[in-house]
């Protein structure tokens, strides 16, 4: 430790205890702010799923719908708890150890994850008036992906990554002793996977899409990055698998819960009878490719020649597409059949304003070609390679 003459008195390391004196965190001392950001991450995700169901079922909304409240509650909890944490870490005399465990941001100190969460909260706030103006200028956007919604999504994703980083620093500082931190990291990663799957819904979400090229190209671009990153950063053997299980589990629970609530459309034209909340589409069976990714990440040596990561990424890209094809090809056909039209799978439930027709039971888009799978593997390779960089860095995050 070499204090510099220009160090901020608030962050000067002379007041910090030596690193050795910081006891590795265990299972029992997860601080409140970690729980707060995990709650925030969950609240936002559930709010988004709820809100999409709301628009597909009821249609009409206001700022004050419970789904919106869940989203904004998540943003507020993340922003306020991390803001408080940063102020306390920077200024409180008793927080010297925390200052040592933080990073500097415009003269303030706090964990990196807190800064990412604060950034996410601010992005969510910015998206509000932007989205409002957008509705006035171009009409209400009844789509997930629009420029202001993307700003909101960036804020949400930042909060989820911030939550992951805050859990990670505990996992990485525990020397592998905190299994709770490993579980929480898988949970936080699962929240991020749900967000990414939700953002990609219009391209991959419905079973009808899951035999065309777009499904494989988009899936290969989105998912390997996050599964490889989670797998590489987790101290558990099954980081990606656990995150995929969280994604699937929570989505299925939301399918079950939403269907229990009676609702009716309040916008027209109403093209089909809808009497309960329309659930999200059944989740992709991502637990299977995630299992393959965990296997590859644990099996293939991380160190060695410079080519190692590229080889691992290539293997992941091919394996992801192959396994996804193997499971989703048949499962999507099941979801379009009568066997899935029940409470458990929640299939064949559509927006109030969609005109009923045979399209509900058909595969959409042009048939899948081998060339599309090759391109998907290549995209999967690039996605996995970025995931390896990200995961390698996350595996070393201490603050």
């Amino acid at each position: 430790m070499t204090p510099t003459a220009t160090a901020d008195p608030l962050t000067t390391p002379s007041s910090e205890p030596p690193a050795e004196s910081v006891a590795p965190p265990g299972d029992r001392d997860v601080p409140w702010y970690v729980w707060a950001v995990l709650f925030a991450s969950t609240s936002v995700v559930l709010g988004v799923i709820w809100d999409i169901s709301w628009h597909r079922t009821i249609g009409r909304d206001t700022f004050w719908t419970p789904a919106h409240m869940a989203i904004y509650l998540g943003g507020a909890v993340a922003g306020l708890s991390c803001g408080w944490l940063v102020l306390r870490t920077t200024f409180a005399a008793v927080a010297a150890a925390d200052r040592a465990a933080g990073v500097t941001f415009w003269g303030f100190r706090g964990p990196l994850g807190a800064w990412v969460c604060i950034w996410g909260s601010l992005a969510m706030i910015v998206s509000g008036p932007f989205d409002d103006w957008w509705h006035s200028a171009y009409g209400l956007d009844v789509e997930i992906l629009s420029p202001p919604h993307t700003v909101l999504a960036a804020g949400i994703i930042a909060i989820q990554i911030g939550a992951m980083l805050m859990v990670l620093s505990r996992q990485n500082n525990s020397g592998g002793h905190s299994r709770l931190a490993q579980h929480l990291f898988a949970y936080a990663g699962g929240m991020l996977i749900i967000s990414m799957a939700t953002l990609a819904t219009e391209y991959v979400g419905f079973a009808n899409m899951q035999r065309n090229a777009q499904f494989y190209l988009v899936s290969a671009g989105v998912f390997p990055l996050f599964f490889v990153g989670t797998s590489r950063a987790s101290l558990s053997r099954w980081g990606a698998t656990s995150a995929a299980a969280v994604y699937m589990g929570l989505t299925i629970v939301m399918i079950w819960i939403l269907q229990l609530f009676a609702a009716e459309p309040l916008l027209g034209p109403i093209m089909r009878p809808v009497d309960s909340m329309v659930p999200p589409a059944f989740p992709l069976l991502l637990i299977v490719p995630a299992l393959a990714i965990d296997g590859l990440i644990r099996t293939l040596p991380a160190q060695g020649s410079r080519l190692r990561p590229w080889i691992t990424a290539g293997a992941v890209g091919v394996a992801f597409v192959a396994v996804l094809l193997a499971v989703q090809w048949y499962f999507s056909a099941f979801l379009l059949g009568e066997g899935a039209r029940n409470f458990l799978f929640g299939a064949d439930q559509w927006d109030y304003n969609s005109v009923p027709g045979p399209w509900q039971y058909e595969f959409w888009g042009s048939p899948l070609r081998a060339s599309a799978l090759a391109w998907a593997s290549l995209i999967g390779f690039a996605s996995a390679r970025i995931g390896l960089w990200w995961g390698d860095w996350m595996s070393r995050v201490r603050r």
Partner: protein
Amino acid sequence: MRLHRLFGLAFAVGVALVASAHVGSTNAYFEGMAGSYSVRVIVRMPGVIPGLAQISVRVAGESAPSVVTVRPLRWDAGLEGAPPPDTAQAVSGEQGLYSAELWLMTAGSYSVHVSVSGTEGEGTVFVPVTAVAERRLDMNRAMAVGLIGAVLFLFVGAMTVFGAAVRESVLPPGEQPDAKRRRRAAIATVLGGVLVAAILWGGWAWWGGVDAAYRAGIFRPLAVTSAVESGEAGPVLTLHIDDPEWLGRGWTPLMPDHGKLMHMFLVRDDGLGAFAHVHPVSADSTSFSVAFPPLPSGSYRIYADIVQESGFTQTLVDTVMVAAATLSGSPVANDRDPDDSWAVLPAHGQTAGERFALPSGRTMTWEAGAQPRLDAETMLAFRVSEADGMPASLEPYMGMLSHAAVTRDDGSVFIHMHPAGSINLAAQARFERAEQGAGQGGGSAASRPDAAVAPADAAASDVVSFPFVFPASGAYRIFVQVKIDGVVETAVFDVEVPED
């Protein structure tokens, strides 16, 4: 240039206003009966779709508060596919006035179904509207500056996060970054900035694409070409719909309104001093022709109202030059639609206030109340007197007691109205037919195209009145047509609507 996109596009908005059905405003005004209730309904359209339409319903002479509900129904979904009724809220301080908001989610032909319940039972009425994207809102300067500032703040914040992530986040608590790590952090800050800038640039390009697609989708009436040429039986005006969309047959067919497939208005550019209301006939589904009336040569604005079987109405707009040689070289046409009418009038600004002397010696008087105000509910009422001052006895002209056209001097507004309002009566009848039995009160018999006169007007048949809202400030000319002793007479009144 980029700021221009944020701040500008007033021009695009102007074009959109010119190009709307019922040129200049798609707002709908209706006055008539809902069962036993005399109602005036104003639907202010949102201008963007999906968007919120503002509905106001005035129930005349109610003895006790009524329950007023409104529902939007799309032409192909009907009441069965309409959302549950919204209860309009009583406007405090205004007896009998109720207001509500309705979401119109898709473009096309809609009808607002208004229901009134009170001491006189229940009455309903359909008010047809045309839902189209008409404009794109500009971003005001404060909003633009705030947004740019927020994005810059987030941008710098993101760069700082990248730097902190590389500089310190991987160090054990308490350890200071060395010079190498600080250098790498500086590089990461810059690279992070480049990455975020690239994302922002992509977002900007995306926004530009969405904006361009939206502006391309702003409603424009079908493109037409027109000409006045000499014919064997006199000068003939032809109007040809040559819009690829029309030729592509992506539309429901036209249906007659007052027995005519097209109601065409001609307004002479020079001083708005000549006016005609004629009814071209269709040679095929794209060409319409009519004998050009005996009016002076010059440039004429054409406004041609058509309505499709879906109830979708639009006003085709064009300008045609009528050469003096074409008129002088042709015989006078005799074969005309008996409902065609025309008049040579004083130039804009040359009228004598609120009284207009009709060629027959009668007088039409504008019973102007308060000065017309921008975007405010206004009743335009006119009284017709015989030369001796006695009330004139008006006859129905194409089923209505009167026809009026309101135009702004630059042509950016042109609205054809009846005492029942600005709504298209054929479209209203279409919705009533489609929903027969859907409500009590039997809809608005008063406003059916085949009805002789509106009962509300029958009691005082020397007075005609039109519910209206001036959609923009500026100089307006109002043409009012009435039929007396089998002759259609046209009066004009000029008015200046000030900025609010």
